[in-house]
């Protein structure tokens, strides 16, 4: 079965959504949409047996064969894991959204079209083997995410958040495209599968570091890493199902997927390891630290997502260390990749449920402000239970999945201190310390989220609506996810064997040949090791700090908003907008004079520069004809009348002098033996002088001042420059004539072939009649143009004037 087409199934279904919404109004459109992820999920589950043993499946669909662009769906452990997350959580989110969004008040057709579009894009990202189609789907997630964040487009904050996320993720996406193109140039192929075996040659290529950094830009912006995380908190203006789906479980993991997928190519480089681990870990700390500042439930969750993504990112970076150690089976680095993927699953599950709970709280109380909430425990017992499970898993408490991944995370970070490459032995100690601090804050904000919402005293007077438990349909998805959180704790090795190990195999194909080689056994209890004491420390200090939270939370307000990253973004946007405006206003003066100065200066600059660079100056007087006396006289007349135009006081003098110039040119035509030209020149000159006089007569009285042209040094400089340039060009081209003229042919054949005596006229109408045809056309257009300009006056005022 060519399952590549399944990627497009949601998009295809999206075509019918508006129809269903408009025609079948009685049934909530979401029920029809729900079929899509459920079908996809059940199909992809059937592929599991293939990947469990390290197998993979490929399905191709040619798109532009001549450019070697194809949709290639490549399913191995890593893609299948993501695919199952996307479709599985997608199904749950759609189910949740059916109860969350009202079918009468909301524009459901928009919502589900965007959501299905997004599903296609995500499936495309995780299954694409071709870099260009991967980029295509990548941008489609940016666009559909933009549409979903701005779903309530009448709100200012929604539009702002949508634009911000679009700007940042598309910026990263474009950078990533650059990285992809460099990769394909280096490797000679767009296929990731074919690039991976070349990894050892690629690393020595000049472009390697560029490609690495550019690709990481894409991954970091999408996965909300420092300093690009700022779009994620603003994306919380989206409907909660969207936040749960895109901004916790799927889209923000696209960057993680990319890092994991390209690890075999880039992990050889120390830069990769430092960047991914360092940025990830710093993001983890930063996100968890600032999560406590938030007053909005979804704001806390957004920062916690940032932090958890950083955690996974740092683990992915640490797993790269495995490439530099010979006997991976003996070292603790084998945990890093496993931990990354394992936590990725965990996070998708618990964060999805937490977002849904935040949505439920919002839906049933009317506010998400944590200062107004409290004491909901007895009113919303099921939501409370789910929230506790999710938050405790996030904090890393047993018996929830998060505990296991936290232990592995600490193990991996501790192992970095033993790593002795890339000056890790000096700085490595920082990693576990930062990780530990981040974990403490994670613990505090998890408790903050649950207990400040559900515990404490109930404040019904501050709530817009009386709080009560959510309808059962809304609770199905979070309860199911919460169950999964618990289940993962008890069967971690089953999850490990089925999902994680095949994914790790895809990440580290050089180290393992089959999933069975990855000898990681997850245990909830592994003795009194350092990480155990670190966990105890996290619990103890975290609990103490949570207890005293009210006392020190105020200190967050000490951080000035003016030097935050958001302020930086706002200022950058403001500057690029008004700054560009101001810059244009400097040179776009609106005066033709300025533009002419630019144009002529550039003509001088470019032409002289080219002549100089190519060393093309040449002045050679050997082949010139002798200068006659009469030519000198006419030249004097010509120059004299030209200067008269420049220095004339009245315009009329200028017009007459211009006529004199024209007649002198006609005289030149005479002495250079061009009778036809002389004839035409005389007639045309007379007519144009008459036209000038006509224009002169219609000048308004006020501007008829008899005034000499003002001297401007800049203008004079430009004019002299242009004159000198053109003289030099003419002299140089005359001195370096490359080929003889073709006019001999005309001379010989003008009578014999064309039957004419006047060679000029024969050229005009016979040899090169086409030019004449179009010059006639030009003349016709000019005539019609003049007539229309004179006759056609559309404004009323002028019309009246005409009728007088």
């Amino acid at each position, binding site marked *: 079965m060519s399952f590549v087409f399944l990627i497009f199934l949601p998009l295809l279904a999206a075509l019918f959504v508006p129809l269903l919404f408009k025609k079948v109004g009685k049934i909530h459109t979401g029920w029809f949409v729900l079929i899509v992820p459920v079908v996809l999920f059940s199909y992809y589950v059937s592929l599991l047996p293939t990947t469990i043993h390290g197998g993979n499946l490929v399905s191709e669909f040619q798109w532009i064969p001549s450019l070697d662009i194809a949709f290639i769906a490549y399913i191995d452990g890593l893609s299948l894991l993501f695919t199952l997350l996307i479709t599985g959580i997608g199904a749950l989110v759609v189910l949740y959204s059916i109860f969350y969004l009202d079918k009468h008040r909301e524009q459901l057709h928009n919502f589900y079209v965007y959501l299905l579009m997004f599903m296609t894009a995500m499936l495309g990202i995780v299954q694409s083997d071709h870099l260009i189609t991967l980029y295509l789907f990548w941008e489609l997630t940016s666009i559909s995410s933009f549409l979903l964040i701005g779903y309530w487009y009448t709100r200012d904050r929604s539009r702002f958040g949508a634009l911000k996320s679009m700007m940042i993720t598309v910026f990263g996406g474009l950078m990533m495209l650059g990285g992809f193109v460099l990769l394909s140039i280096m490797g000679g192929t767009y296929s990731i599968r074919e690039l991976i075996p070349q990894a050892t040659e690629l690393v020595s290529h000049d472009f390697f570091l560029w490609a690495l950094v550019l690709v990481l830009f894409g991954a970091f912006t999408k996965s909300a890493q420092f300093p690009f995380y700022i779009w994620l908190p603003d994306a919380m203006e989206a409907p909660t199902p969207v936040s749960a789906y895109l901004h916790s479980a799927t889209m923000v993991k696209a960057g993680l997927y990319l890092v994991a997928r390209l690890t075999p190519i880039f992990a050889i480089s120390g830069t990769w390891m430092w960047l991914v681990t360092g940025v990830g870990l710093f993001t983890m700390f930063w996100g968890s630290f600032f999560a406590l500042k938030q007053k909005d439930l979804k704001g806390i969750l957004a920062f916690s997502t940032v932090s958890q993504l950083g955690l996974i990112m740092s683990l992915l970076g640490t797993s790269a260390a495995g490439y530099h150690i010979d006997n991976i089976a003996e070292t603790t680095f084998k945990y890093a990749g496993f931990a990354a993927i394992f936590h990725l699953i965990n996070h998708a599950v618990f964060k999805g449920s937490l977002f849904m709970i935040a949505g439920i709280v919002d839906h049933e109380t009317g506010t998400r402000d944590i200062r107004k909430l409290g004491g909901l425990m007895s009113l919303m017992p099921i939501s409370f239970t789910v929230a506790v499970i999710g938050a405790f898993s996030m904090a890393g408490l047993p018996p929830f999945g998060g505990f296991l991944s936290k232990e592995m995370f600490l193990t991996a970070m501790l192992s970095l201190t033993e790593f002795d490459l890339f000056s890790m032995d000096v700085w490595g100690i920082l990693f576990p310390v930062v990780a530990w601090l981040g974990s403490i804050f994670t613990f505090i904000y998890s408790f903050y989220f649950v207990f400040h919402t559900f515990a404490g005293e109930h404040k019904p007077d501050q709530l817009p609506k009386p709080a009560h438990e959510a309808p059962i349909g809304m609770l199905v998805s979070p309860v199911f996810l919460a169950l999964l959180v618990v289940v993962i704790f008890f069967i971690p090795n089953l999850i490990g064997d089925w999902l994680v190990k095949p994914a790790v195999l895809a990440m580290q194909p050089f180290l393992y040949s089959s999933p069975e080689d990855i000898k990681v056994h997850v245990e909830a209890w592994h003795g009194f090791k350092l990480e155990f004491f670190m966990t105890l420390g996290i619990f103890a200090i975290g609990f103490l700090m949570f207890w005293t939270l009210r006392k020190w939370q105020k200190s967050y307000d000490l951080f000035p908003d003016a030097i935050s990253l958001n302020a930086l973004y706002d200022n950058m946007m403001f500057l690029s907008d008004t700054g560009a405006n101001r810059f244009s206003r400097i040179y776009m003066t609106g005066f033709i004079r300025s533009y002419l100065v630019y144009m002529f200066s550039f003509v001088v600059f470019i032409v002289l520069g080219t002549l100089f660079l190519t060393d093309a100056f040449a002045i050679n007087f050997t082949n010139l004809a002798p200068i006659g006396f*009469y030519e000198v*006289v006419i030249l004097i*007349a010509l120059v*004299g*009348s030209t200067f*008269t135009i420049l220095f004339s006081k009245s315009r*009329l*003098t200028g017009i*007459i*002098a211009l*006529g*004199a110039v024209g*007649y002198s040119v*006609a*005289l030149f035509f*005479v*002495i250079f*033996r061009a*009778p036809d030209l*002389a*004839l035409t020149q*005389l*007639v045309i000159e*007379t007519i144009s*002088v*008459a036209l000038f*006089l*006509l224009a002169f*007569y219609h000048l308004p009285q006020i501007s008829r001042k008899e005034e000499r042209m003002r001297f401007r040094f800049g203008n004079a400089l430009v004019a002299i420059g242009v004159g000198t340039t053109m003289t030099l060009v003419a002299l140089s081209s005359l001195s370096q004539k490359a080929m003889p003229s073709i006019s001999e042919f005309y001379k010989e054949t003008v009578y014999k072939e064309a039957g004419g005596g006047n060679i000029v006229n024969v050229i005009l109408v016979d040899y090169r009649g086409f030019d004449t045809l179009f010059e006639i056309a030009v003349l016709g257009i000019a005539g019609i143009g003049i007539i229309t300009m004179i006759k056609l006056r559309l404004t009323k005022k002028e019309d009246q004037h005409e009728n007088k």
Partner: protein
Amino acid sequence: MMTFYWVSLILVSLGFTGLLFRLVKGPTIADRVVALDAIGISLVSIIALLSLIIETEFFLEVILLLSILSFIGTIAFAKFLERGEIFDRNNHN
């Protein structure tokens, strides 16, 4: 004979230069217009003499044309100076 042509040409050219001076300097517009008209006529003689010197009859048309143009041009200027416009407006419309 050629010498005669050349001498005549130089004499006419001197006249031409004088007229050119009047064209540039000419205190009133009328001076300039008259100078321009005379320039047209001297151009006719210059072209005629040049045709003799380079021994061609192809420029005789130019001479005829120049005479007509010179006439029309002077009329146009004169009308312009007198009435301020060259073409009369058709009053029937």
